[in-house]
């Protein structure tokens, strides 16, 4: 009897919690009749801040923090201050869904979402769309390449495009036999199908496609299997621990094989682990890094750069993120949202959302602005605006995604940093039709 009563109470509590979460689906900003003096507006960072993908959360934070500094310095949005709030998805859908529900249900004046990332986007994007909440995802998953969700935006190239860039670079370096080594998990694995599809087009032979379990004490069997098929080059994405173990054991097994690595290699954590495992000189000799690219120049980037520098410390890392394309485009997302709210004179996401794409689309009748202050001034003068921010010209397509170029980088052991080597233009990648 007691058990039944307890179960009934638990069920009632669970139902109540679900109802509260459901009722809060509109977000704090939604439905506000007055847009000024409503309190601090929140950009929700729905990203992994712990676990293997925690670096992605750092990228978003280092875009949001300078953005709110710039916006608040200019007087906020419609007289309201803005802030960033973290909601930790831990990099998987199981934790991401309750994090998204909590964010939507409990955050007063939530006006936009920075995220989700690849691992949790399929599970959380429908929730955010249902709540009419603009989201600026870093998910590379190709399933979002033609998203019809009007609230979904992606300002960095998709993983299928990154995969093409990786394969093209392997070919450009003169290699023919490619081993593909990616850690198991949605984030890394999103690259693999496109890599396997584009390799034959480029005349590359995939000798192995290893999906390795992260954080194992040994990969000796996988290394032996890989070496037995004699690859010329390894294309890789993995977390620091797994890659350090894998490549350290590869080196000990006598396999000093060139590597083409995704943007994970831009993180100092990854570089530290790998240079520890392989030695800085070996890493410099063998590694090429492929990273989404826009030049670090222009007024928009300069303001971002100076602001980030001024905020350095307490979770903001100037050296790591001043050129990071994900941080720069997150910064642009915040500025675009703030200007869209101003243009529509509303903090209601449903009302201001259509203005985001408009602000990011060029036009002959538009004034190009590079900063939030410039945008505010132009809007006050009743001008139409086109934002070219820290990430340069984004070139948003009809699905709110961008194509973009990639850069190749090498590791400099003296400075312990990556140095720019060249650019893979978007045109070359577009030419690689997958049919």
């Amino acid at each position, binding site marked *: 009897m007691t058990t039944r009563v307890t179960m009934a109470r638990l069920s009632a509590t669970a139902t109540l919690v679900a109802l509260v979460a459901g009722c809060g689906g509109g977000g704090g900003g939604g439905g506000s009749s007055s847009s000024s003096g409503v309190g601090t507006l929140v950009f929700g960072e729905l990203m992994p801040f712990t676990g293997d993908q925690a670096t992605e959360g750092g990228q978003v934070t280092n875009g949001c923090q300078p953005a709110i500094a710039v916006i608040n310095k200019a007087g906020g949005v419609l007289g309201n201050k803005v802030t960033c709030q973290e909601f930790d998805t831990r990099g998987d859908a199981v934790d991401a869904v309750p994090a998204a529900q909590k964010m939507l249900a409990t955050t007063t004046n939530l006006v936009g979402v920075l995220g989700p990332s690849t691992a949790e986007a399929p599970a959380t994007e429908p929730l955010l769309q249902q709540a009419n909440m603009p989201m600026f995802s870093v998910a590379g998953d190709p399933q979002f390449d033609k998203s019809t969700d009007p609230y979904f935006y992606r300002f960095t190239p998709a993983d299928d495009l990154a995969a093409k860039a990786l394969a093209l670079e392997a070919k450009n370096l003169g290699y023919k036999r490619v081993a593909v080594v990616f850690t*198991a998990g949605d984030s890394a694995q999103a690259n693999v199908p496109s890599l396997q599809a584009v390799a034959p087009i480029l005349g590359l032979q995939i000798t192995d496609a*290893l*999906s*390795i*379990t*992260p*954080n*194992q*004490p*040994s*990969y*000796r*069997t*996988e290394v*032996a*299997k890989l070496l*037995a098929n004699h690859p010329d080059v390894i294309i890789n994405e993995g977390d*620091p*621990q797994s890659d*350090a*173990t894998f490549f*350290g*054991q590869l080196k*000990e*097994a*006598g396999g000093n094989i060139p590597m083409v690595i995704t943007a994970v290699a831009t993180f100092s*954590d990854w570089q*530290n*682990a*790998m240079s*520890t*495992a392989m030695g800085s000189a070996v890493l410099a000799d063998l590694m090429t890094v492929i990273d989404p690219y826009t030049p670090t120049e222009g007024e928009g980037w300069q303001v971002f750069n100076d602001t980030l520098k001024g905020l350095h410390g307490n979770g903001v890392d100037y050296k790591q993120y001043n050129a990071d394309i994900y941080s720069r485009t997150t910064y642009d997302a915040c500025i675009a949202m703030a200007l869209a709210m101003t243009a529509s004179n509303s903090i209601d996401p449903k009302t201001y959302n259509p203005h985001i794409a408009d602000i990011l689309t060029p036009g002959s009748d538009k004034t190009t602005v590079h900063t939030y202050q410039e945008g505010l001034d132009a809007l006050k003068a009743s001008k139409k605006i086109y934002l070219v921010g820290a990430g340069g010209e984004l070139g948003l397509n009809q699905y709110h995604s961008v194509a973009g170029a990639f850069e190749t980088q090498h590791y400099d052991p003296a400075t312990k940093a990556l140095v720019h080597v060249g650019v893979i233009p978007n045109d070359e990648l577009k030419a690689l039709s997958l049919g």
Partner: protein
Amino acid sequence: MSLILPTIGFSLISASILALAAVGFTLQFGVTNILNLAFAEVMTSSAFVAYWVNSRGISIWIGMLVAGLFGAILSLLINRWLYRPFIRSGTRLFGLIIVSMGLALIIQNGVLAITGPGFFTYDQPHGLAFDVAGIRFTYTELAILLIAVVAMAAVHLLLTRTRLGKAMRACSADSALARCSGVPTARVVDIAWLLSGALAGIAGVTLFMNTTAFSVTTSGDFLVVIIAAAILGGVGDAYGAMLGALIIGFATEFSALFLNSAYKTAIAFVILVVVLLIRPQGVRAAFAAAREVQT
């Protein structure tokens, strides 16, 4: 297939690290019946003590001895200052599991606060390799294999050839009866914690040596496999843990060879579930149901 022989070798290395940890884990559990989920953090903290020693220019082998000593003392203190007071106040099996989870978090974050979140490496011999029966082992791997064999032989001799070993086995089988028979159970429990901690320390260092670069979370990821090996062998049975480590070591490496490497941990658990369905008491030991904690 030419890779089968090397895979046998790599399986032995994986099993060696796992055996050191699983035997340490199960020795303590067998005597005290406390499921110490902070075991992996004892491995981590001890291995970082070895790092501290090693980073001062001292050999990693000396560091390993210091780590074993540190792990032993830390485990003893954990029991005396944490578990024992909880047990005296009436906390039992499930309560102690929660306490051990909390302790694991405290130790992990404590180590993190001291070391920082980066990656570390031991100054250990690299590049030396030896061909043994057609298998190419590194110096480190051979050393790990040797350490595991010596440690397992020592545990075997302790349990079978000494009065202390007999007392430990008596406590593991029936502590109340052992106490009535004049076995100083409190001392035996202390020694079980000491031995468990020493093996945790040594296992932590071998694990970190093998992974090349390590962080404060490296051992934590390994805990589930340690527990799986211990359960597979029969909880509380040191020989069972050795056998469990061998089975899981071979299962994971061979699954990486013949199947997708992504499934290697899952394969280990499929084997665990299948074995427990057929033989709930584990592959060796008597099933340890309805056991009570020992102080």
